[in-house]
């Protein structure tokens, strides 16, 4: 009797504690922004990473509402989202905003046939296998409630509100705990070998 009672108390207490731990942050952050998903959150203030060219996501994805996958075109086909090739930049910037100093930097590089050396912002450790392709399919293409044009809502689950950033900033911790919580909430695979290689 006593054992069962104490056991029950421990379990119930832990349940309550767990609930609290799970959902404390929902007070701060609005609910899931991708329909049909649970969205993990965490107090992480973000890390700024300087770049050789002050590329502004705000202008491209925010103000001009360019779809993320227009530039990060590999995301739906590969595990890496990829940095757009310089030719893609020049596709527009031979015409648009050629007078800006950052664009002139870019043009100079293009003419020399060099690529800028970007600093990685969202860099997972080398022992982690993360595939953009599968995540996009799960949250975007297979998601009846979301239109493909809303890709950035899916992207922002891990990358934060990129559309509001000037230079990309790491705004989610991207730790194992971060991944696990999302996998638990959205019933992603829990097999270690899915992510660890």
């Amino acid at each position, binding site marked *: 009797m006593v054992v069962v009672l104490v056991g029950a108390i421990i379990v119930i207490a832990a349940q309550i504690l767990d609930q609290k731990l799970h959902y404390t942050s929902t007070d701060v952050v609005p609910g899931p922004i991708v329909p049909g998903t649970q969205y993990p959150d965490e107090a992480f203030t973000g890390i700024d990473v300087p770049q050789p060219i002050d590329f502004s996501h705000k202008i491209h994805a925010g103000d001009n509402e360019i779809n993320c996958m227009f530039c990060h075109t590999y995301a739906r086909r590969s595990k890496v989202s990829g940095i757009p090739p310089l030719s893609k930049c020049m596709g527009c910037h031979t015409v648009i905003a050629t007078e800006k100093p950052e664009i002139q930097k870019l043009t100079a590089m293009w003419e020399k046939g060099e690529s800028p050396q970007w600093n990685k912002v969202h860099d997972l450790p080398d022992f982690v296998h993360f595939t953009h392709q599968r995540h996009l399919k799960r949250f975007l293409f297979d998601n009846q409630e979301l239109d493909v044009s809303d890709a950035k809502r899916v992207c922002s689950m891990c990358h934060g509100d990129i559309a509001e950033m000037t230079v990309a900033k790491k705004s989610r911790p991207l*730790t194992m*705990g971060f991944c*696990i919580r999302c996998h*638990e909430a959205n019933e992603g695979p829990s097999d270690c070998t899915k992510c660890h290689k």
Partner: protein
Amino acid sequence: MSEAALKHLSETQTKDIDENIAWAKINRDVLRSMENPRRGYWIAMAISVALFSVMIYAEVYQYIYGMGPALLNTSHMWDLYISTFVFWIGMSHSGTLLSAILHLVHADWRKPIYRFAEAMTTFSLMTAGIFPVIHLGRVWNFYWVMPYMTDRGIWPNFRSPLIWDAFAITTYLTSSVLFLYIGMIPDLAICRDNTTGWRKKLYTWLSLGWHGDDRQWRNFRITYLMIACFLIPLAVSVHSIVSMDFAMAIMPGWHVTTFPPYFVAGALYSGCAAIITLFILLRYFFKFEEYMTFPILDKVCKLTFVIAMVWSYLNLVEFASVWYGHDIPSKEVLLAKAYGPYAPFFWGMIAFGMFLPFALLSKWVRRNMKLLFVVSVLLNVGMWLERWMIVTPTLSMSYHPWGWNIMWPGWVEWAMVGGSFGWFGMLFLIFVKVFPCVSMYEVKEMVFHRKRTIYEDVDEMMVLHKGAPTAVEAGSTKNGGS
């Protein structure tokens, strides 16, 4: 003490303790042992520190270069680290045995010697605990075996005997430290009352305001008893769990059902042998002849012999069950132990562990301090060899013949093994100078109760009523003494 005096003492000392010893002398003798380290102490300390430094160097080396220089290999993933771990865990059983079991059965001759035995328990555990950590390939992640909550949602594997080890050792270390400490509180109060300076501060803090009132004593007695009751099953479980590191494995020579009792017996055995060694050392260096007496030594020796026989029996049972069980790989391992390249060590273990204890039957040996010292050390060498002979030959001869090979430990491993003795010695040497290594209050109790018993025997109470000289009058000091 001169040779002649020693010889004289060995012939005349027939009682566990002289019940007329003055209580003040007890305090004085023990407190003296804590002061003014002499040259021998510093030499011992220097050796211990030197050994320990070598261990640190080896560990740093291993940290940088990996487990390779230890010459572990694909078949021998464990070697001396684990066998020495088992050895030290075994050593730790002495204190528990002497303190808890003998306490429960009211064997009061334990009282003068249990303190250092308990200290030995604690320090052996602290030494043993090092080995599972340093044997890890990625020692910097050792805390992953602890069941702590992380946001990663991963836990240790509670099915692994290594986790059981971690739990058992933690529990055992906590409990034995508390046992040692609680039993020491009245003595710490004595120290507090008789020292000055930093020692006074330390003892005041540690004695928790002990002032010997009856409530404290009563609670103390029950606490001590309770912890002793907890400790005995714990001690048994700890070494059973250590044995399960092997018994739970599938390997021939490890997968043996008699391992838990066998390990416990071996642990008690090596613990008792170590008590004899330290008994002789302390008695010699601290001139504790009046407390650590020959009759007590006799009892310890006899106890050791009995446990040695239990261990030998279990050993033979294991051989017999392997032999008649006719599991070919197990039999191959047994034969390889006896005839293979490790044979000298195997037979050394048999000689030291099974046959040498018979020397303890001789009173002449028991009274010959130097010889007994050598014997007790050899018993422990035998027990160390036993652990090595459990770990390594099985790995050399497992199921798949591809893995058969002979491996001799590299320098890193030897440095760690040697260093563990340095570490233990260092802790023990610090202990004997900071804490009383003979329990003063319990020696007093022993004296007091024995004296009462004697008085009762001669119907002393009658005499007392008639106004015969009391103990106070008879003694040179206020109570007792001759």
